[in-house]
């Protein structure tokens, strides 16, 4: 029997605020005049900020609620910040493009907030059922968001692909969950951990269950070979949605990876460690190598985000605290940088015509020096060149790997970063070393998008200046480890 204390709801204030805001946004989008709908973005931003503020207020919490269905601990708080950041970026980037391309339907913002609630629930789950609820809330919102531009074929294709494969992954997760329930008689993460540690379970069934749960999570973080959906969905979805999707669900996926694998399956670590290694190497290799062949920057960034999932998986290998801390820190660096990189695509968008191909970037250094400089910063950050954020993320990650005794895996990681430099550089080459050839979809200047520009500017400054904030952020990540 689950104990329910109404007073405990205060710990869920960030989610409640997001839920109220999301519902208000959806309701008001039917009431207000179409011209006023962009104003609902402001409401969403305020809601997200309030949720972030509430999460900050509850940062000292370390409680287990409702018979440990929900855990509000520093780990959950860290991810709350991260998701607030992601949703703020997503909303700010969306405002203008939604008006011109998305039929000005502002349920969009509601869906983004609902997705963020789902992610938070995933990070806070103390029970696999809660993980599933969060996963579904997040995924269902994202399916709709991916297909939000109803009149665009690519957007529809993205939604369908994402939906079918995503549902499959959810199904696999539930299979794994039911196997675990059959083995241990519980769905609580901690109780499963105790049962696994006590031993005596059927090993093939346990390995199968762990593999199934891992597969579902690997799908959400788009690890190879469960990445097939990523390039098409990222390319087809509205660009601001892609920006949001490339950081939020990935972070949520890694949150449950850490929570479940470090708390429920540490005893099975010898079993899953080799899987993690293989998964990591495959993901790095496939993501980075295929990215080289792309001529669309958006699709290239999709493959690059697969590659980054590979780096992050290195942090899981060994199952050490340093590795977990490195994953948390990397996710923050990656979120800032990737929002920025996709943000540049949004900022450059024309009234008619997206900016996606390499040719669109030709001569950008001359025509739009500020945007080019921003893109330069984000691309070098993704490559991992100091003093950009991406470097410090990789540095911490590889340090953790070496400490855990996986020097060779770290070597593979850095060599893959060197490979990745090749395709990131091509965009830089196009921007600064080629003459402009004109934007494919439509001529003219980028439309004015002050809010998106603000978001990208903040991301750029954070990316460059992260070295100054290094210590507080590292300490925050180190203090936010999951229970192990």
């Amino acid at each position, binding site marked *: 029997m689950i104990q329910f204390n109404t007073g405990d709801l205060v710990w869920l204030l960030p989610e409640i605020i997001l839920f109220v805001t999301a519902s208000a946004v959806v309701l008001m989008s039917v009431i207000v005049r179409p011209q006023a709908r962009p104003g609902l973005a402001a409401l969403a931003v305020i809601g997200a900020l309030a949720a972030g503020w509430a999460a900050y207020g509850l940062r000292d919490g370390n409680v287990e609620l409702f018979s440990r269905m929900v855990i509000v601990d520093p780990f959950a708080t860290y991810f709350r910040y991260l998701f607030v950041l992601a949703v703020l970026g997503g909303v700010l980037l969306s405002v203008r493009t939604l008006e011109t391309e998305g039929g000005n339907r502002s349920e969009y913002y509601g869906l983004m907030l609902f997705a963020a609630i789902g992610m938070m629930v995933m990070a806070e789950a103390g029970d696999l059922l809660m993980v599933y609820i969060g996963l579904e809330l997040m995924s269902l919102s994202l399916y709709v968001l991916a297909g939000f531009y109803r009149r665009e074929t690519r957007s529809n294709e993205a939604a369908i692909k994402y939906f079918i494969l995503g549902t499959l992954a959810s199904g696999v997760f539930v299979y794994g969950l039911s196997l675990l329930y059959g083995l241990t008689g519980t769905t609580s993460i901690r109780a499963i951990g105790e049962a696994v540690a006590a031993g005596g379970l059927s090993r093939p069934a346990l390995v199968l269950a762990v593999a199934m749960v891992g597969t579902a999570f690997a799908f959400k973080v788009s690890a190879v070979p469960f990445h097939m959906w990523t390039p098409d969905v990222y390319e087809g979805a509205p660009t601001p949605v892609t920006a949001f999707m490339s950081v939020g669900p990935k972070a949520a996926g890694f949150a449950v990876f850490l929570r479940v694998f470090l708390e429920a399956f540490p005893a099975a670590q010898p079993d899953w460690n080799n899987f993690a290694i293989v998964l990591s190497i495959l993901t790095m290799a496939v993501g980075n190598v295929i990215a080289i062949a792309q001529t669309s920057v958006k699709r290239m960034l999709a493959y690059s985000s697969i590659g980054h999932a590979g780096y992050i998986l290195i942090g899981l290998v060994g199952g050490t605290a340093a590795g977990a801390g490195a994953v948390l820190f990397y996710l923050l660096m990656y979120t800032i940088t990737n929002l920025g990189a996709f943000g540049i695509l949004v900022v450059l968008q024309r009234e008619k015509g997206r900016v996606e191909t390499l040719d669109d970037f030709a001569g950008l*250094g*001359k025509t739009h*020096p500020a945007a080019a*400089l921003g893109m*330069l910063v984000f691309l*070098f950050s993704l*490559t991992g*060149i*100091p*003093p950009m954020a991406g*470097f410090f993320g990789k*540095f*911490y990650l*590889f*340090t953790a790997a*070496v*400490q855990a005794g996986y*020097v060779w895996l*770290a*070597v593979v990681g*850095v*060599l893959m*970063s*060197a490979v990745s*430099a*090749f395709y990131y*550089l091509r965009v*830089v*080459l196009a921007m*600064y*070393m080629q003459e402009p050839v004109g934007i494919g979809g439509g001529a003219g200047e980028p439309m004015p998008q002050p809010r998106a520009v603000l978001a990208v500017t903040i991301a750029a400054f954070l990316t460059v200046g992260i*070295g100054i904030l*290094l*210590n507080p952020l*590292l*300490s925050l990540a*180190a203090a936010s480890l999951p229970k192990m």
Partner: protein
Amino acid sequence: MKFPILSLTTYIPLVGALYLLFMKEHEGMVRRLSLAVSLAAFALSVLMLGHFDPKTSGFQFVETLEWAPSLGVTYKMGVDGVSVLFIVLTTVLTVLSVLVSWTQVKKYVREFHVALLVMESAMLGVFSALDLVLFYVFWEVMLIPMFLMIGIWGGPNRIYAAVKFFLYTLAGSVLMLIGIIVLYVHGGKTFDVAALLQVKFAAPVQFWVFLAFFAAFAVKVPMWPVHTWLPDAHTEAPTAGSVILAGVLIKMGAYGFLRFSLPMFPDATATFAPYILALSLVAIIYGALVTLVQTDLKKLIAYSSVSHMGFVTLGIFALNRQGIEGGIMQMVNHGIITGALFLLVGIIYERTHSREISAYGGIARSVPRYAAFFVLFVLASLGLPGLNGFVGEFLVILGAFQRDRVVGVLAMTGIILAAVYLLWMTQRVLFQEMTHPENEKLADIDTREFITLLPLAVLSVFLGVYPNPALSVMHASVDQLMAKMEAHRAAVISWSQAWPF
């Protein structure tokens, strides 16, 4: 806290770069500001050299600030007798690079000076960082402005050259990053260079980390056979880029050997020294032979750098005092001489837009002052006694002979070949008949160009006649390095010791 002169010198160019980036000044103002900033950095570095105590072997002007203690990373800066020389060399060459670009750089002027100044900050940071992570940060930051400098303002084949430069250097550097992390794990969870210098690392750690660092430094020097990026990069880069590349950037590999590889991994150094000596000899002789057949002036000087840098690594890995001091002298001198030669090529290229030797001939008659500088630096480069090039090469060869007579003899052939290719090139460019009538009306160097070349000419003669000031600054530091290597009584590591599995 003492006056943070090192950080100030390092960041003045960066602050200048940020100002230029965000304040949209017009081109003339950009150039003047950039010159003022680089002169300020130069003045500070001279002040620092003036206050440097050559009798102390330890690090001076040390600044320590907490950065990320949870990871063992500190912000620590300091210089010793080796790095202080390079700091001054860097600030001098940056000032000259600004001057030489005054009329040569016409597009993206603001961005050019931003890149140049960021580059200067990063280079100064590399020479003064005393924390491995800080060092790595500066080391990698250099890649971005240099990549842009070659790629945007370079010659016709610039994109190929820029990408090649970036990928070669990055591939080497990332392996060093892993090496740095391994040192951290085995050296007491710190990245502090001074602390790590006290640690005696186990044989396998030395073996592999030496190789990881070697990957980064060998590409940078560049040693044969990873030198192929250099001729492309040097040739395609704008004059300022070539000067910085040849003058400072490629010295960093050798600097890294001295600062990290030799004192931290004495056993691995002893193990690999014979192979590195062999590679150095190949670089010296092969580099010189390839230089002989070049028809492009810039490419010729670029390949001659491969050969001259071979002397540097030869001296360092001779592992005796003469060799090491000669190697350091050779680095400083090569920076001065090759920097000057690239300036000279840039100056004439601006007038004729040709780098082909065959486009010239007999121009000494139309540009006598230019020819005077040209001959001076060519003679310095081929090691004429009385000019600075001689001092370094002489010491290196002395060290090489002490190490092994055969090595010394083979290295000597490099000097002979240098005389051949340099004098032959000079003859074809400056003397002989004037084959191209349009060269009759070439304008001789103007006052700005004269001012650009003069400091290097003075330095070249001064260090050639009286090298003691430079040598005395480095004596104490080299002494300490030798003492450290002897204290460890370096033992060769066998393969079976190093095999990790």
